[in-house]
């Protein structure tokens, strides 16, 4: 088996591992904290939609948030308890912005959901059925990116999978959770690999592990049956950062390169993390959804660095306490490794599916006081770049905010491994420039979509208004025409006589009003006499007065 010819990738770094620090002893199971804070977004894609409400009692393994989009993952209750809130909470994200979390007050009984479907005979299941099980278990890539695993087990129409790779490289310094997982759950990883192999109908399986983890390599090799040895090969790969990068590991194991803007599946390869494989075995064989993981707690600010088996939603501080964090000496807390980790500002931030490591640093370990100096164009970054990009050009155009140029230099092939920034003698935070450019380009893309929609809506509105105007005009015209028609039917003579008749009627009415005396119907004789006298007087006066 050692006859396999390995490839190698461009650049990369030799880093000191610091892995032994956290590999002392067993993996301890963290107790259930009094409160679990479970973010609805622990993966790449759309956030899950909560299906529980405040006050609900949930059991371990119960679905608490369902997926609403293709690229998403459901979330399950890690233990039994009562939902006490659904609210904004600090989540592990570089922005430090809060996001919606489901808060569960645990009851300590750890009571499982009753009807869990287990499938020990997974070979008999249809690949589609397996993907559904994996999807519904909320499994995402546990290596760090958190991409929904079922999507990566869907080769797509007409695409054949030749090689299924399990990534056990764990190349970043300090992190050791995958190493311990491989040592302690080797058989589960192989079971998960078999399930995945069946789901994608892969030919050959490779497990790539850096050669600084001999125990893990041995454990996996020992757990292979003779039959499995025919198609599974556990390969020790040279320790070099970032071998754990998907494209880099594929290059090393198969000597094949993935073209720019393509996926591994386009060259017939699928790559998953070893932790994902173990989670798949749990989900399919035991019916356990993804609710916990191994987390490395290490660094210089904890007295007892080691690996813990923690439930998702456990506040980071709860784990730090178990590792006896030196209060007051914790200068910085990172989630992930020193190269790609993100800084955590709030120690109550929960553990999520992609939390592989909590790295604690003392203030004196932080090399942040390096003030960036101008680029001297030494080219060290280009030599170190494992994606064979030109980091200084990318830096240049990112800084100038010329995003077309940044894309011409393939910024989206950058895996943000941080090698360029590590070797930079001017201490320029290069990766941050690329991240800036990437998020800025995405923003422009979103703006463009929005303005296109606004244009469409505006044009439609104008079209509608124009149409309405025309309709109104049409109606008015028709009304006028109708009126004309009604009048036009009568000949002129008839019209004239009609007018004359009407005029005569009016005249007559006027006359009547003028001459008729009102209130004279029920008069007494005396009154009548008075009236007559008055009339006679008026008559006489009118006659006498020549002016009237």
């Amino acid at each position: 088996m050692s006859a396999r010819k390995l490839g190698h990738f461009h650049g990369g770094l030799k880093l000191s591992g610091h892995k032994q620090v956290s590999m002392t002893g067993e993996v301890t199971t963290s107790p259930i904290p009094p409160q679990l804070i479970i973010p609805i977004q622990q993966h790449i894609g759309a956030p899950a939609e909560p299906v529980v409400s405040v006050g609900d009692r949930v059991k371990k393994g119960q679905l608490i948030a369902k997926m609403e989009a293709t690229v998403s993952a459901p979330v399950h209750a890690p233990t039994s308890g009562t939902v006490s809130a659904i609210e904004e909470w600090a989540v592990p994200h570089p922005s430090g912005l809060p996001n919606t979390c489901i808060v569960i007050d645990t009851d300590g009984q750890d009571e499982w959901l009753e009807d869990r479907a287990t499938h020990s005979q997974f070979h008999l299941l249809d690949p589609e059925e397996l993907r559904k099980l994996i999807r519904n278990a909320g499994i995402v890539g546990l290596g760090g990116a958190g991409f929904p695993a079922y999507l990566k087990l869907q080769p797509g129409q007409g695409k054949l999978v030749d090689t299924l790779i399990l990534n056990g490289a764990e190349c970043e310094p300090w992190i050791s959770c995958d190493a311990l997982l491989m040592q302690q759950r080797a058989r589960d990883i192989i079971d998960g690999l078999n399930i995945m192999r069946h789901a994608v109908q892969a030919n050959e399986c490779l497990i790539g592990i850096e050669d600084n983890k001999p125990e893990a390599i041995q454990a996996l090799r020992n757990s292979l049956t003779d039959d499995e040895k025919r198609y599974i090969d556990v390969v020790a790969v040279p320790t070099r950062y970032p071998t754990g990068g998907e494209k880099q590991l594929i290059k090393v194991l198969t000597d094949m390169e993935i073209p720019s803007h393509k996926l591994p599946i386009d060259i017939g390869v699928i790559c998953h993390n070893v932790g994902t494989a173990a989670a798949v075995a749990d989900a399919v064989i035991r019916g356990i959804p993804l609710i916990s993981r191994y987390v490395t707690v290490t660094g210089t600010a904890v007295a007892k660095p080691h690996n813990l088996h923690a439930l998702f939603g456990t506040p980071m501080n709860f784990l730090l306490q178990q590792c006896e964090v030196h209060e007051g000496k914790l200068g910085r807390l990172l989630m992930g490794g020193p190269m790609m980790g993100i800084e955590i500002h709030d120690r109550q931030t929960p553990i999520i599916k992609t939390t592989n490591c909590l790295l604690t640093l003392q203030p004196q370990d932080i090399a942040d006081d390096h003030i960036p100096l101008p680029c001297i164009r030494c080219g060290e970054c280009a030599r170190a770049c494992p994606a064979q990009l030109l980091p200084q050009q990318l830096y240049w155009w990112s800084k100038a905010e010329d995003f077309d140029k940044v894309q011409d230099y393939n910024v989206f092939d950058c895996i943000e491994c941080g090698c360029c920034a590590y070797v930079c003698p001017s201490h320029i935070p290069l990766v941050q420039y690329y991240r800036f450019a990437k998020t800025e380009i995405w923003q422009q893309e979103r703006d463009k979509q929005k303005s296109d929609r606004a244009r469409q809506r505006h044009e439609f509105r104008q079209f509608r208004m124009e149409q309405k105007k025309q309709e109104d005009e049409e109606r008015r015209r028709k009304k006028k025409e109708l009126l004309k028609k009604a009048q036009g039917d009568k000949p002129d003579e008839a019209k004239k006589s009609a007018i004359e008749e009407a005029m005569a009627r009016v005249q007559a009415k006027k006359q009547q009003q003028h001459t008729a005396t009102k209130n004279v119907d029920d008069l007494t004789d005396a009154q009548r006499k008075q009236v007559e006298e008055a009339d006679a007087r008026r008559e006489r006066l009118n006659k006498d007065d020549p002016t009237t």
Partner: protein
Amino acid sequence: MLEAILVLTILSVIFGLLLGFAAVRFKVEGDPVVDQIDAILPQTQCGQCTYAGCRPYAEAIAKGEADINQCPPGGNTVIVALADLLGVDAKPLNEEHGEAKQEKTVVIIDEQVCIGCTLCIQACPVDAILGAAKQMHTVIKQECTGCNLCIPPCPVDCIHITPVETGLKEWKWPLPEPAEEEEQS
């Protein structure tokens, strides 16, 4: 001599016909430059440029009647893009038309105060307000361009400007601080 005149005459007739044919055959409807300019403009339809919308402004720029620095919502980005497209020098935003927006905004209707007069619905250039006479109105946040054209007609001042919420998805990495020496220069 005569031959030369003859040859040139025939040639000019041939080319004339060819050009005439091409002009008819490959006639471009509308002005493609207007489309290109319109694609750059932010489509807020706010009218701050003094034209009745983004497209009329694009037409005016294409005709040379309007300057490229009259679009406050687009700000510097749009000015640079227009300058690039038209091959002219970029210039600062003309402050007469308003100040460039620092952050994206949308409007919300205070539904307690709204009297259902529909005036804002008539003012909205992108049909982003929903409602009917004497019914409460509401803004479709996703479609609002933040042009604020609905605010002046409102008789009860129930429309307010709010910044667009930045979720995890919209969050952007900031540009790092520049290197020390460059900062000094």
